């Protein structure tokens, strides 16, 4: 009887130890009565940032490809997970992305021959573009992407720069991004036929790698000029 009591005490003590509510975040901001004229909004605002959920995260969740150069496998292509997109990629393509990592490098260049002609850009953008090209050749993909983004800040409506960025993403294995960027380039390309064909070939390769054979065939037809 006493034994049971002691047993119970020990068990309760240990269980009680585990039920201490602990805070798992930084100290909460002190919320005081709002200053006159501010309304009740400040009280909720200071507590909002912790969630990151729909209420406070007014910029929607961003998934940056963090290990872009090394492990494209399973890495999100910069798209939020929970939006049903109207984009070209099917849900199966994301799984295909992660499965298909090993052999992307050498095959890309072979499949998507570079057809775009180099247009005339401002000297600043052109310098960056050349630098990006060098970086791409030496497989410094994050560097190439950064140079291209910098160039895009100078000439945001240059379809050629978008095309270059699409190629970099393709070589990184970020297929849905490559498709989207190529589509963006197409939307800005106007009548530059060679550039558009190049974009379509990028899209074709990306679709083929993600398993969308029908779409890939169609894209290849456009890439040939048909």
């Amino acid at each position, binding site marked *: 009887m006493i034994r049971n009591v002691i047993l119970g005490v020990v068990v309760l003590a240990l269980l009680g130890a585990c039920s201490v509510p602990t805070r798992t975040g930084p100290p909460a901001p002190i919320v005081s009565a709002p200053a006159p004229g501010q309304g009740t909004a400040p009280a909720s605002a200071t507590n909002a940032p912790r969630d990151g959920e729909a209420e406070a995260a007014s910029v929607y969740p961003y998934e940056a490809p963090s290990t872009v150069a090394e492990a494209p496998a399973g890495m999100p292509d910069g798209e939020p997970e929970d939006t049903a997109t109207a984009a070209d990629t099917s849900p199966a393509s994301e799984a295909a992305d992660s499965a298909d990592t090993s052999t992307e490098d050498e095959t890309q260049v072979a499949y998507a021959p570079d057809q775009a002609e180099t247009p005339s850009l401002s000297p600043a953008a052109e310098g960056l573009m050349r630098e990006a090209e060098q970086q791409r050749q030496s497989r410094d993909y994050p560097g190439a992407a950064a140079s291209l983004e910098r160039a895009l800040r100078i000439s*945001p*409506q240059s379809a050629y720069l978008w095309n270059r960025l699409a190629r970099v993403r393709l070589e990184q294995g970020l297929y849905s991004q490559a498709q989207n960027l190529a589509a963006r380039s197409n*939307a800005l390309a106007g009548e530059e036929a060679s550039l558009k064909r190049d974009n379509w070939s990028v899209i074709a390769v990306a679709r083929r790698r993600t398993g969308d054979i029908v779409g890939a065939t169609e894209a290849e037809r456009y890439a040939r000029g048909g």
Partner: protein
Amino acid sequence: MTIFFHGRRCAARAVAVAKTRKRPGTNATRRRPSTRAPKGKTRRARRRRSVWPFLLRWGVLTALALGLAVFLYGLHLDRIVRAKFEGQRWALPARVYAQPLELYVGRPLTPAQLRGELERLNYRAAASPERAGSYAINAERALVRTRPFRFWDGAEPGRALEVGFADGQISRLRDASSGGDLALVRLDAALIASIYPTHNEDRVLVRRADLPDLLVETLLAVEDRSFFRHIGVDPRAIARAGWRNLRAGGVVEGASTLTQQLVKNFYLTKDRTWERKLNEAYMAILLERRYSKDEILQAYANEIYLGQDGSRAIHGFGLASRFYFNRELDELSVAETALLVGLIKGPSRYNPKRFPERAVERRNLVIDLMVSGEVISRQQASAAKDAPLGLREGGGRPTGEYPSFLQLVRRQLQRDYREDDLRSEGLNIFTTLDLLVQSQTESAVSERLPQLDSARGFSEGTLEAAAVVASAGQAEVLAMVGGRTSGYAGFNRALDAVRPIGSLIKPVIYLTALSQPERYTLMTILEDRPVSLRAGDGSRWEPKNFDHKLHGSVPLYRALVRSLNLATVNLGLDLGVREVAQNLRDLGVMRRFPVVPAMLLGSVSLTPLEVTQVYHTLAAGGFRSPLRAIREVVDAEGRPLNRYPLAVEAVADPTAVYLTTWAMQKVVLEGTAQSLGRRLPDGMTMAGKTGTTDGLRDSWFAGFSGDKVAVAWVGRDDNRPAKLTGSSGALKLWGDIMIGIDNQPLLALAPPDVERVRVDRTNGLLAGPDCGRGVTVPFAQGSAPGTRSGCGSPASPAQVAERSDGKAQRSQRDQSRSRDENLFLPGY
């Protein structure tokens, strides 16, 4: 989750302990003596002798069990203590940089703007700049010695630059020492703040060595006399306090050591139960075992809560001395130190700004304690007591000068990075903030709001505003203003003010329609007729136009241009409210909203930043990119922590977006935003939409140029009517912002499957070139009307050729952007 997990582990331990308890086979032997029947004396002897071992054994086992329990509990607490303490350590802050100014020939920049940027970078004006960080500037040319700067993607060397200006642009960029032309140069990035990314509040970090002796001794004298001697809890202090409290009949003295107070700070709620106190005591002991006295003192000095500045808490002596006295900690006098230490007991109760008498009383008490603790002499004490409070304004301002933008940066950091990474010392955070655009936005807000206040007869300061500017190509947030008082870290309306968007939703409805070119074109006739829908609760929803009139049959684009409610609702109901809602989500809205017909007139509530996200997708031709405030985060060794690369997703048909943009540009030219259209310089085109809500409570304008998208909101915090429509309020502010910064005109190139057709304005049918009622409207290929309206002479063969063979025509002029082809310009 953690508690559950711990619970399971502890339960497992409990079971294990219970099992070990059962294992010694004493049970059987214990029971057996009681069932046997010993005889006479031997029985009594045995029983008497058997009590002590019995008790001893059980006592030892109980003590062991309890000891084990306490020990295991201690392990658990120790882990918590370590996690919390490491988390509270204030290491080197992360440095936050704005976008660097990039210089290249052709970049729009005036000498004044360059001077402003150089001043922000703390460059010195010199007659002939020799040293890095100096410049000389006049109306035509600037000589700058730039400082070298390490960006994440490479180092930018220091240079001697010669910049030539002409026509508001950079006309020449040369390296003054070598004489060669330079294609592109980055100035060093401006440091806008030092923040602690894992915390929402900031500190002015003081190290143990920086703590003045006076402060430390005062602190000990007042709060914890034997700090350097005790083990975390001070039993003598507890006894003494208990005795004094008993005598006084209430709580007059606290017994918490500094360590215990520090531990108390780890907890979220402030309940003072026995359980909590015991936990704190235990944790204090553990803390003392792990960390040295100096470390604990340093953490305490940086953590202790000392006051409130609006919604911002003041923690730590470093920040408090700046906040109350606008002085550094080592400059404080005896009286000022005493005041700060006195605040520990009750920062609100003894708040010197609100209760000066109480504060003085408390301060004097502390001074007495300093005397009795032999920290200061009696003469010093009496001099200090005579001193006034000595409060000075202006110190301890929140991080940097761009608190609204920094709040966004913080949120993105905490959302997208691991906390461990953010705790590394010396991070460099490169953001997208464009200081030129930010300063223009801030000055626009501060100048326009008082004008709006007086125009509506409000007292100064009634109206509030928010504005966000982002780049249309890169989805980078260039500027953010969260309220009319820039630099004040209060409620950030751009991030957090959730307001109904009103007519801002209309472009989404029209986009949905135009995405079905077989059903709707820009000239489709809509009926602006009354709508009456039964709501769920039996009431009827009967919206009205703003002017309470009915406009009959209107072409689709005119309904958007004039923001006709009834026509829009009819269109939306035809399309289906769900379709429109899905489209709104595709464009980038993450917040939940009720999918009801009232949504068609903007009962959806969003923040200005969320609206910017939606309009950015429109500005980018139907390509959604998440808005980002951070470009790169780099650790102290220059290794990138993570990158925010540009990510793009096609969510809307580019042709439909082009058509919608055309209609939105008409809004600016001839619709509800005409006043903006009249202000635009020649050749500049912008598209947008006004938004007004019920009772004129919210005034919105959202729009974009070729390379920038901006949203402005004006309203009242207390949600009373602001008496402003979108065009009389937010539009003016928006115009001030956008006209003051550089923009590229809207893209003149239409997507290849758009054709321009001249149609009759009244009935949407083909019109001849000399038709007075004609207007050139873009159509998706194959959706243009086939029949002629009879207005104007029949189309000439050339015109017919143009319509059906637009490709040939366009290929000749595809690269040029002359006025003739720009459908966005007035005249079309």
